[in-house]
């Protein structure tokens, strides 16, 4: 019997409200102090097609999406067929007793007359909530936790609807009391309500951006970045943030650059396809030394690829996008805390060094949600860099004499501050030049910032002991699966550590040498085909990455897969 740990999944047709139900359940768990990680799968279509939402709940972090299901709520037959092979042998499948022609051989089948109960409670539409009541009873969870979340979710729908739904929960719960399952493999023994947030990576990014002083957000919808837009748009009046759905991604990035030139913190977000369209303007931010923050939420490519799935295939692209050479920083958060924190870091670094900063996420991080206790300790003081309030006479925007390569910014309409932000190579005022020596000086000035940046970017974080049997290295959203796998392996007596890269570019070799040198067996783990991060390690560390654990089927890593790979040897 597992206490306070289980993997719950609900599946059905798109449009059946699966995401809403899943989140209600996840919040109920979090309210009881459980740590949750919620992962959804859905196809790139609006209705029909199989959707599912899974909640992994545990006493402690790290928590992540796992393959083996303890409780499956199947709203249709397809769900059972698709996920039967994921069931734990002790698991329970909750489904509607009216499902026909079910010839499935599985011990833990637990039919419930869900539709019937729903109709009794006030309408078919409450069916999902019946399943929540059933789940609570099976897990022996306090019903109050579910009721609270349901109440929050339906409070704006009117008294009647709310009542209906609460009734459905209760009826589901009571049904189990009267018809207890043959066995239970997991139980929740928490009773107290605690303060916990549940949010997606994109929500964390949006929140962090607001906190960082975002004043203009420009974007063109693209999965899995769109929810940042959806989150920010209703807040534009409250926070005085201009939120614009522009005509395309080209316009989005340029609008953000224009706004930044005029002095405010701005951002644009997109996925790989939209980022392709932003490539040209990225270099313009580079040469004009305009701060810029871009969030790029990856999905599997190439091209349109698999719009609603996950991959880490754009790493090299964001590092090298746009013609010519300029400094940019890539930050790769691995969970929501890092997302919230690193977007703030992005704004600071962008302004401090007057460069573009790209926060690289993926569908797994952007759209999965996670529990978190508090955000406050992740906040950062603002570093706004060299901004002039009063501009001296003979002001030079691209002053070559600055030692750190960072010259002072002036903003319209400050008297004396006139200058040209020029996409052409330019002199200290920004006016065009094609002269050989000045060109070299300007390039050198811009590049000089690199030295300072290298000591200012987030360092990789080591999880586990320096001396371990096995060493994993990766970036971004592989973090949770890896950390969870490490726990499993520890139980088996295999010690594994993990170096979590938060800034793959500019790559700072010094931060990796020790780890790499002391690794007995080094495995680079990435959600892509080529092993792009491994390539970066090879390029910069003068090593050969002999083992790469790669995955490119659109799904995130599940801890089991990592465990299996590590166990079976390189």
């Amino acid at each position, binding site marked *: 019997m597992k206490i306070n740990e289980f993997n719950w999944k609900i599946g059905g047709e798109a449009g059946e409200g699966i995401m809403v139900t899943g989140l209600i359940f996840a919040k109920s768990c979090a309210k009881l102090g459980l740590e949750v990680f919620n992962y959804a799968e859905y196809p790139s279509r609006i209705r029909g097609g199989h959707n599912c939402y899974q909640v992994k709940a545990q006493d402690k972090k790290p928590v992540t999406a796992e393959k083996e299901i303890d409780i499956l709520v199947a709203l249709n037959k397809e769900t059972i067929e698709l996920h039967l092979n994921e069931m734990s042998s002790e698991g329970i499948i909750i489904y509607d007793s009216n499902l026909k022609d079910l010839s499935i051989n599985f011990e833990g089948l637990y039919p419930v007359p869900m539709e019937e109960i729903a109709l009794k409670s006030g309408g078919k539409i409450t069916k999902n909530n019946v399943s929540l009541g059933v789940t609570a009873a099976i897990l022996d969870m306090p019903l109050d936790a579910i009721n609270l979340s349901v109440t929050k979710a339906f409070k704006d729908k009117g008294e009647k609807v709310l009542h209906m739904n609460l009734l459905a929960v209760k009826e589901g719960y009571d049904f189990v009391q009267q018809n207890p399952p043959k066995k239970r493999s997991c139980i929740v023994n928490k009773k107290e309500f605690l303060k916990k947030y549940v949010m997606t990576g994109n929500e964390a990014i949006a929140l962090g951006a607001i906190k960082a002083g975002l004043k203009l957000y420009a974007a063109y919808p693209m999965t899995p970045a769109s929810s940042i837009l959806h989150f920010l748009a209703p807040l534009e009046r409250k926070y005085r943030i201009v939120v614009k759905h522009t005509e395309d991604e080209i316009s989005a990035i340029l609008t953000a650059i224009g706004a930044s030139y005029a*002095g405010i913190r701005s951002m644009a977000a997109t996925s790989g396809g939209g980022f392709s369209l932003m490539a040209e303007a990225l270099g313009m931010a580079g040469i004009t030394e305009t701060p810029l923050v871009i969030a790029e939420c990856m999905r599997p490519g190439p091209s349109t690829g698999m719009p609603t799935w996950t991959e880490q295939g754009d790493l090299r692209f964001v590092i090298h996008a746009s013609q010519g050479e300029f400094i940019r920083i890539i930050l790769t958060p691995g969970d929501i805390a890092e997302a919230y924190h690193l977007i703030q870091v992005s704004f600071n670094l962008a302004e401090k060094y007057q460069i573009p900063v790209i926060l690289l996420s993926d569908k797994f991080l952007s759209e999965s949600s996670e529990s978190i206790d508090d955000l406050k300790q992740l906040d950062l003081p603002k570093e706004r860099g060299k901004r002039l309030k009063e501009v001296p006479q003979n002001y030079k925007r691209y002053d070559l004499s600055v030692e750190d390569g960072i010259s002072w910014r002036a903003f319209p309409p400050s008297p004396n501050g006139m200058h040209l932000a020029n996409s052409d190579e330019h002199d200290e005022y920004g006016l065009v030049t094609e002269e050989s020596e000045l060109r070299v000086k300007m390039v050198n000035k811009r590049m000089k910032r690199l030295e300072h940046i290298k000591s200012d970017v987030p360092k990789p974080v080591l999880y586990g002991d320096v001396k371990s049997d096995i060493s994993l290295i990766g970036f971004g959203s592989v973090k949770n699966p890896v950390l969870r796998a490490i726990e499993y392996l520890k139980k088996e007596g295999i010690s594994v550590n993990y170096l979590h890269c938060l800034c793959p570019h500019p790559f700072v070799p010094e931060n990796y040498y020790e780890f790499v040198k002391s690794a007995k067996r080094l495995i680079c783990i990435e959600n892509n085909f080529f092993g792009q991060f491994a390539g970066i390690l090879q390029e910069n560390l003068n090593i050969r990455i002999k083992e790469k654990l790669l995955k490119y089927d659109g799904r995130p890593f599940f801890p089991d897969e990592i465990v299996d790979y590590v166990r079976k040897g390189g």
Partner: protein
Amino acid sequence: MKDYPVYNTYQTPSWCPGCGNFGIWYALKNAFHELGLNNHDITMVFGIGCSGNLSNFLKVYGFHSIHGRTLPVATGIKLANHKLNVLATSGDGDGLGIGLGHFIHTCRRNIDITYIIHDNRVYGLTTGQTSPTSPKGFSSKSTPFGVIELPVNPVALAIISGATFVARGYSGEIDHLASLIVQGMKHKGFSVIDVLQPCVTFNPSYSYAFYNPRVYKLEDTAHNPQDYENAIKLAMEFNDKIPIGIFYKTERETYEQACIELGENPLSEDDIENISIEDIIDDLLA
């Protein structure tokens, strides 16, 4: 025409002698002077092309952006600080070729920016290829057998798409052009000024000699700029007679006004030190 060198940078214009861009340069300086603007009161966005080289010759807050993309940059600037006087300029290839989409979408928005198209009907800086306003049959480096598409009509497109001030100027009539710029800048909303700009090097058929006898001023006619239908009809006129002046002018809420969040004070003056997100994260509480 007078000149106001206070708006000059240290660089001398690099345009070919006789280029129509000089007329636009002078007209802008005259307009700025007439409006009593200091250098720092003007923020201007430029594209890439001979037109864009103007960025080096005007001492204002400038942004020499990339080819075809002046309008989104200008929009970002205006939204960040809607108290600024924002102008944008483009070449015809720049603004009506590669950048055509932004043009129409910006017209829809009616943002308070004055947009000047240096319409020389050719790609100047890349040494003479066809442009979207080159006439059918135009032979150029990229179309040695003549252009086979119809030209775009920036005036008609602007009117149809929602610009609230649509005019045509002519580099050969600097005072008139300056007055259009003044009116465009005073106008609240998106003001589009398509400028007939001779390119003496690559498009000699649209020379001063071609335009001079043909242009006539709309203000000398009975045309009422509020008359939408007649404005469109006039926009189609481009033969022996070529109208210059204001084709269309109307009032409509501007984009900045419609962005309620902007209110009075520019965003750029907001203090961002202490932003509280308590309220919204409460929605994310379990």
